[in-house]
């Protein structure tokens, strides 16, 4: 378990301030945040390399606040690998290995065994990351800290290595904390997501929760939410309105039916947000586009004109101008073609009341 309790640290002029989160034993945590938010400093503080200035750090039920790095039982992999250049690949992997067998086993699993004859200087960035992973895991640590460990790998190798890391994490019962810029990776790997900015934790929790229910418009935008609208929320009524029929589950958890007004738009929302000013967050994939008003149960329906189309491989982002308010929807490129969308096409953008998050 990684248990940070109001952890503060200073690295040069940068400060980590009151960082608190828990990654339960055997779970996989992901740290996300913009560049310079303190992600690497956080890992180095947990590793004991950057000294804490206050707070407490517990690893696997042991207070390691004043424990030196070499006995914390940690494996650390930097984005730039930092392989020891004066040692061979084999000696790098064996450097702190629990045993020669473990070193050999992890080298094989990460595909670093084919590199042992090559000098470190001759390795590519991706190969260096493989060796760095093997070196860290060969120690059989209880806690693994990974700083963008797959960033230099090609997409195919990245998938394989990510799977292998996850497999070792599971087989050895490791607690892992990984820094990533890749939201897909965060969603794929993480049991716990920690969003860091300016040396502070902005939000932590299950990745799904953090992505779908960001605590602030800033977080929503950082996490790639395309539609963040400022406005005013109003509670409709205590009982479930008729348009919520067939969807009683949200109300059962204390959510309320609300109305959110942003400029000329009025959205229907199911949420637990207090009445007053706030922001509505609608992820692009929640919005369905159709040429005619749809038959479905989506409560929010707006007619508008397509103002922009951006094709990103298999997905197309479509911006619809609804009475001056741009709504961005994401649909498959195939669907966009089937709908024959182009700038100026009149469409209906629809999404459910449960697809709107207020913060």
């Amino acid at each position: 378990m990684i248990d940070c309790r109001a952890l503060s640290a200073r690295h040069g002029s940068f400060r980590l301030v009151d960082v608190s989160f828990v990654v339960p034993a055997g779970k996989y945590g992901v740290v996300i945040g913009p560049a310079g938010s303190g992600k690497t400093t956080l890992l180095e503080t947990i590793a004991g390399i950057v000294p804490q200035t206050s707070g407490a750090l517990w690893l696997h039920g042991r207070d390691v606040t004043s424990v030196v790095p070499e006995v914390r039982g940690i494996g650390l992999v930097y984005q730039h690998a930092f392989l020891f250049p004066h040692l061979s690949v084999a000696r790098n992997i064996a450097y702190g290995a629990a045993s020669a067998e473990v070193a050999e086993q992890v080298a094989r699993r990460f595909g670093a065994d084919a590199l042992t004859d090559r000098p470190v200087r001759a390795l590519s960035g991706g190969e260096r990351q493989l060796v760095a992973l093997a070196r860290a895991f060969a120690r059989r640590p209880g806690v693994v800290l990974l700083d963008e460990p797959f960033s230099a790998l090609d997409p195919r190798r990245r998938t394989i290595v990510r799977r292998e890391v996850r497999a070792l994490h599971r087989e050895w019962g490791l607690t892992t904390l990984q820094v990533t810029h890749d939201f897909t990776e965060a969603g794929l790997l993480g049991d716990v997501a920690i969003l860091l900015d300016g040396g502070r934790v902005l939000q932590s929790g299950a990745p799904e929760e953090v992505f779908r229910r960001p605590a602030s418009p800033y977080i929503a935008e950082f996490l790639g939410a395309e539609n963040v609208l400022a406005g005013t929320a109003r509670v409709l009524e205590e009982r479930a309105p008729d348009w919520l029929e067939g969807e009683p589950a949200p109300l059962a958890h204390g959510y309320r039916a609300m109305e959110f007004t942003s400029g000329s738009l009025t959205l229907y929302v199911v949420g637990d947000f207090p009445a007053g000013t706030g922001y509505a967050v609608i992820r692009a994939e929640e919005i369905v586009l159709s040429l005619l008003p749809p038959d479905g149960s989506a409560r929010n329906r707006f007619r508008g004109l397509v103002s922009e189309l951006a094709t990103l491989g298999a997905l197309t982002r479509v911006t619809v101008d609804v009475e001056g308010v741009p709504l961005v929807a994401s649909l498959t490129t195939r669907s966009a073609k089937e709908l024959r969308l182009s700038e100026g096409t009149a469409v209906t953008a629809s999404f459910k009341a449960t697809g709107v998050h207020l913060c």
Partner: protein
Amino acid sequence: MTVGVGAPPARGAQRVVAVVAAVASSLLLLFLAVPIGKLIGAGGLNGARQLFSDGELRQSLGLTAFTATAATLLGVLGGTPLAWLLARRDFRGRAVLAAVLDLPLLIPHPVAGIALLLLLGRESAVGGALLAAGLRVVGTPLGIIAAMLFVAAPLFISGAREAFARVEPRYEAVARTLGDSPLRAFMRITLPLSRRGLIASAVVMWARAVSEFGAIVVLTYNPKVASVLSYDRFTSFGLREALPVAAVLAVLALIPLIALRTLRGADDGVRS
């Protein structure tokens, strides 16, 4: 043609700047190299001959090499931890410590000799205590070593500090997470990665120690190191007698320079 703000200078102006720079560099290079070349040319052959015939010169060169080596070893021993501390640790007073360590480079060397005499002379507490312990510093090779150490050690510390600073601290961080204590990480990672820089710094220190005169002459005129012997022959017998000794000393100082050139090249694992 319109020339905007920040536009590169015209080709003619660039050519003038290049010519001026080339002439200035060439003149400086000649000023630095010609006297040494002329010295070695004029006295080198005689000096080589005298190495066989002149016992005092041989003895003096042996003493110079021995004391410079001893001073360098002491400098490396004490200077390495200091250099590491200055390169790696951020502490209050670091700038002051760095300035104090640079001070011997800045003061006139006879003044350094006088300062050492105050510390190590028989009248001083330290000198008296050393004398009582049977260690006479002034007028012995120990005085030469002390003078060499004082004036040359800052060069080693400065170079070693630079060598340590060029090693990315995250190598040590990784080594720590792989089970190394700070000392073990230093021995296994930092030292091998800064090896070339440390050796180069030690060579520079040695060369500086070999060429020291001002501080040595105050502490220990006799026995004579090569620089003192050269000066002694110049004042006693004139330029002709001083030339061979001076030429041999210049060659002796050139040896580490050649060694340094062979050590050139990028250090392993250092920051670019």
